């Protein structure tokens, strides 16, 4: 784990302890993905509505805390602002409201919605002959939703080469409706598919920047709770749990032990 991603995780643990909220294991699986996305897309934190920007949508909206922390890291807002996470009248809810947070392009939370909006955005930019790229991050549990596959069919049918779908394969699906061999499934839908370690920033950046002839899918193999042994080993218990002070110290120690 890189020092910057370790710091992001530590900040999330702090925020989760104070607020009593946070899907920590689900968030921890996507930190490197989010960091890689914002490292390579065209965007300007000082001008979030920059006309030439690319667009990223977090379709697995319950990882909003991870997106907030990464956006703060890139300078969209002050890291201290996140202290109000989940509080009454805070801008920072457990699922993001696009009208409140610079850098958040769609309000998500109900699963299987962000990807459909992303398909519409990609189509719009194709119609307008705009070079903007649209990227979305979906969860493997989210892919239980039929709308994910509807959207993929439509996107591939329209040959939306300006659309990149990143699939967080953190094995959330394992205890319920299982999606075996996701890469093969996306390939069967006609998408251009690659598979990477979802915690390898360099590899992620390479795959995100590769061009494609049609919809690009990056199956990012991740670990739910990555970076904290406690979260990895007890991910169901910790799905919506926030740590107390003692647990927080233990989680942070575990992160330090994993940091390069």
């Amino acid at each position: 784990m890189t020092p910057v991603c370790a710091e992001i995780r530590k900040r999330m643990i702090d925020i989760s302890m104070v607020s009593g909220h946070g899907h920590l294991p689900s968030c921890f699986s996507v930190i490197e993905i989010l960091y890689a996305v914002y490292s390579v897309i065209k965007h300007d934190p000082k001008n979030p509505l920059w006309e030439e920007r690319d667009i990223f949508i977090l379709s697995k909206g319950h990882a909003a805390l991870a997106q907030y922390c990464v956006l703060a890291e890139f300078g969209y807002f002050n890291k201290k602002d996140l202290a109000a996470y989940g509080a009454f009248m805070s801008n920072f809810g457990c699922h993001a409201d696009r009208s409140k947070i610079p850098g958040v392009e769609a309000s998500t939370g109900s699963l299987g919605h962000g990807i459909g909006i992303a398909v519409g955005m990609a189509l719009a930019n194709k119609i307008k002959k705009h070079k903007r790229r649209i990227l979305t991050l979906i969860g493997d549990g989210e892919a239980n939703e039929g709308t994910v596959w509807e959207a993929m069919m439509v996107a591939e049918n329209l040959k939306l080469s300006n659309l990149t779908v990143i699939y967080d394969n953190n094995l959330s699906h394992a205890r319920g409706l299982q999606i075996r061999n996701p890469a093969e499934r996306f390939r069967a839908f006609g998408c251009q598919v690659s598979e990477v370690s979802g915690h390898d920033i360099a590899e992620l950046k390479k795959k995100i920047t590769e061009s494609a002839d049609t919809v690009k899918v990056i199956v990012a193999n991740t670990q739910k709770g990555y970076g904290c042994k406690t979260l990895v080993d007890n991910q169901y218990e910790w799905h919506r749990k926030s740590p107390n002070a003692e647990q927080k110290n233990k989680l942070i120690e575990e992160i330090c032990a994993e940091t390069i």
Partner: protein
Amino acid sequence: MRKQFKETVMDLARHDDKIVLVFGDISVYLFQDFSAQYPGRFYNMGICENTLVSVGAGLSSQGLFPFVHTITPFVTERSYEQIKLDMCYNRFGGNIISCGASFDYAWDGATHHAYTDLSLLRLLPGAEVIQPGSRKELDALLRSQYNNGKMTYFRLSDYPHTIDTPVEFGKGVILKNNNASVTVMTAGPLLGNVLEACKGLNVNLVYFHTIKPIDKEMIRKFRNTDILVIHDAFGLYEAICEVPNISVSYYGLPDEFISCYGKLDQIRKHIGLDVDGIRGKVKGQISASAKNKR
């Protein structure tokens, strides 16, 4: 009414290159002129109503004016959450144009009947809900609302009325004002039957093509009368009931699925929404109101 939809959109598209059509494998043949003339702005996306709406929201987010079009129950009931979240909550509004109102597809049975759409969609913050009753109303309301950035729902019917009424978004229309003690209020194509049924009866008659926002000022004008809402759907009655301190009752749909097939007129007769059924109900209301006044 679908022909009018096409004619109006064809005309609008000549001057507005932000119009994009997203169809759910319906009306494709009817719109072949449009698709030939504007191939980059016409998409038959197939039978995936949820994604039609989400894609419409995405198009809207990029400054385009989507027209999402398919069959009423599927685009409203199946895709309710997409309309609620992707279009309304995200404020990526667009036009949803449904076809197959109430019992237009009588012969297809209860799977294709649609009477909850108006009542459901009017509950969504920021939504506009329109039930045009005639081709003229559809034309005028499409032109005035299509590019306002809101989620605007247009409920098309294959059986429009031909009564010429003034059309202004959000405004009800007084068709009869006899200073009567009973006011009949209705909306959409059923006006044809209602107007015929009220002939010679001492009632006021008010008509709506906009369900949300409902014209509350118009309703308040008749607050001292007994209001009888006659409608072949849900939504109008509930909207009228939001005006406080009025006496209002509903005559329309029973609490059961209608599975007798046949044609629209046969179903209307079956549930008492033919001219005779409506006339009987209105006469009964006039008698009841007179008794109450004594």
